[in-house]
């Protein structure tokens, strides 16, 4: 874990309200896994919290992160220009562990696709990914070239304006019986993960499933206990430190 001052290389709109920022790290931050995240300063001192953003791509010392315009902080971040320097703490969280897995089902919704893309990029040379990705509409579709690194890719939209009409979980369920896979990795809105969990239980929990969760964070390193989620045993887990990736059966969604 390192806190570095990184130079912005580019910061571009990739879909409606979605930006991709690429920063060049001044030194290596060690291995960064798909599903891990960074804490990035907005560049405005009046924002005391850094923004926790999932890693989308790592290429040498360049790291790319995607974010949705939500409020003042992300708006400020969207104004960062090439050459600007931003503080970045990384890598944070556990990330997806795919050791021993070969055939992996990917279920992603909306901005949840970014950590999944990092995971596909990390492992696509020696593992097969079967991806089911849902976006709101055509304007929200992005990074298709990255998603196409999957062995098989199904993209759907809520309104059918791109790909098929439907959502990622439904699309997966249509194919579920035909697929011989070792595990599922998923990230997306809470309602998507909730439905996924329910459907997997109905199907007899035949396949392990790991989900990456999102929560409003404070420190990002596990100290402040702000970003907790409920575990099935009633205890709390820290999304930033114990997660953000959890076994779907371990957490209440």
């Amino acid at each position, binding site marked *: *874990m*390192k*806190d570095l001052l990184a130079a912005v290389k580019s910061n571009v709109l990739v879909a409606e309200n979605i930006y991709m920022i690429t920063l060049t790290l001044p030194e290596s931050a060690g291995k960064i896994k798909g599903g891990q995240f960074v*804490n990035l*300063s907005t560049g405005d*001192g*009046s*924002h*005391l*919290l*850094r923004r926790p953003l999932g890693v989308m791509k790592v290429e040498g010392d360049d790291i790319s992160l995607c974010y949705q315009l939500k409020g003042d*902080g992300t708006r400020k971040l969207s104004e960062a220009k090439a050459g600007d320097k931003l*503080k970045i*703490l990384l890598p944070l969280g556990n990330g997806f562990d795919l050791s021993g897995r070969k055939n992996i089902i990917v279920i992603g919704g909306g901005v949840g696709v970014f950590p999944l893309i990092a995971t596909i990029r990390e492992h696509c040379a020696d593992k097969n990914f079967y991806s089911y990705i849902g976006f709101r509409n055509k304007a929200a579709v992005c990074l298709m070239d990255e998603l196409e690194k999957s062995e098989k890719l199904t993209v759907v939209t809520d309104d059918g304006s791109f790909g098929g009409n439907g959502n990622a979980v439904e699309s997966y369920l249509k194919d579920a019986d035909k697929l011989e896979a070792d595990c599922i990795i998923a990230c997306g809105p809470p309602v998507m993960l909730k439905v996924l969990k329910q459907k997997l239980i109905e199907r007899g929990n035949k396949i392990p499933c790991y989900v990456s969760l999102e*929560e*409003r*964070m*404070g*420190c*990002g*390193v*596990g*100290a*402040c*206990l*702000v*970003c*907790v*989620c409920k575990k099935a045993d*009633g*205890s*709390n887990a820290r999304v930033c*430190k114990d997660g953000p990736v959890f076994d779907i059966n371990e957490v209440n969604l």
Partner: protein
Amino acid sequence: MADLSVKVCGVQLKNPIIAASGTFGFGREYDEIYDISVIGGVSTKGMTLEPRLGNPVPRIAEGKSVILNAVGLQNPGVEHFIKEDLSFLKGKGVAVIANVAGKSFDDYGEICARLDGLVDFVELNISCPNVKAGGMAFGIKPESIKKVTEVAKSALKRTPLMVKLSPNVESIPVNAQAAQNGGADCISLINTLTGMVIDIERRKPLIANNTGGVSGAGIKPVAVRMVYEAAHSVDIPVIGMGGITCGADVIEFMMAGARAVQIGTANFSDAMAMPRIIRETDAWLDKHGVKDINEIVDTVTLN
């Protein structure tokens, strides 16, 4: 290189920079980023006799130059701290300040008795704004501040007692004196100010608890004023906090009368905040030819 060491209630701190309760856990996480033995002390996450799960999420929100939190005293309980974390912190050579909260006077007595002799200070959290029972209920009126301080003090035979004051009160001098009269060995302030942030699209407060404790750079002038008032109304040492982000802020609080300071929210903005603040404080003293940091304490003169 000035002498940064300070002595508070007979406890020697290598420098006056202490991690504030609730922002630093029990030190382990930040120790993965830098060796926390460089800081003067750690005030632990607020602890209760029994483990607590805290409030629902979201527990945090942001305003301009401030944040709000409502964690609600999630903690593993004091016994867990004694077994699992105390020796780690002691091994780091930092002053260990056990921050404690209770639901009743008896709770405060019992938790203090359990920690007596084990830690460098017990910091009484009588000002947590985020729990329904206890916490703040004890910290508003001078009568209950004096009583809870007396109960804690009678359970502490060997460990000095620090009472953490709330800013959400009528009079800081009156409450500081109430703590002193109850037997406090020192005072720390300020805890967070109670606030609210509303998501105007949903017409709902951003924090699940509706209100939260406001902290961060934006509250610093309020904190400096209250530290000044406290330091000039009691004879016991005062530990200042509230919005400190840099070395100049440390100097300001110490000039207002603080013997040491606590750093909280700045750790979120900058995980390396405390080592940086120590360097900046040292550099300011060098630049001004001050050889011993204690020389600047309580040196502000009013207009």
